[in-house]
């Protein structure tokens, strides 16, 4: 299945891109997707457990992904 991963702010900087199309095995979780992202150049600069969201909602690493999901890796937020 295919999942789109979005990167923002400092995380987009370290990976040099703002989105990645990931091809994952059926049943893959948010943590699995993160491991794939971490294997990319610059991915080792992500913190061990960044905030993640699936389809605009914060999600845990154990969350099972579905084909077409929008995954986001969320740097420390700094609004206001």
């Amino acid at each position, binding site marked *: 299945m295919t999942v789109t991963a979005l990167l923002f702010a400092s995380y987009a900087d370290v990976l040099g891109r703002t989105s990645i199309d990931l091809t994952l095995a059926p049943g893959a979780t948010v943590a699995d997707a993160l491991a794939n992202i971490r294997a990319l150049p610059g991915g080792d600069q992500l913190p061990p457990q960044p905030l993640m969201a699936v389809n*605009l909602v914060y999600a845990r690493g154990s969350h099972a992904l579905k084909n077409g999901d929008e995954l986001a890796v969320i740097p420390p*937020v700094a*609004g206001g």
Partner: protein
Amino acid sequence: MRAAITTRPLDVAALLAEVADASCGAAILFVGTVRDMNDGRAVTGIEYSAYEAMAEREMRAIVHEAAEQFATDHVVIEHRLGALELGEASVAIAIAHPRRSGAYDASRFVIEELKRRVPIWKREAYADGTREWVDPSGANRGQHT
């Protein structure tokens, strides 16, 4: 009740007018502005960016939570994105409430929740020409340059 992301300058007086209601004896407007100093460094401007769809969704959720928890429908948030100069408003929260204690508590709730969970980021520009992503959590301090 309303929450919005915008790239235009915030019209904070309009937000206060938007929440005004004759059933409310108190209105509070909170405005966050770009400071000229942060952590002892001279700041010259801030660039705000966001995961816009999720940020608006979280802001709407916060507005609804505040309305339920503090029993008022008169809650509006606007957050600006883009390059802001010193003194410009990045966020404005307007609350009207029958009583002032409810207005203060709701206003404080909204800004604290916004800072805790809305996916917005800021990159400060400093007088020495450098720029840095701000990490209020301090968890990655010094990592992002």
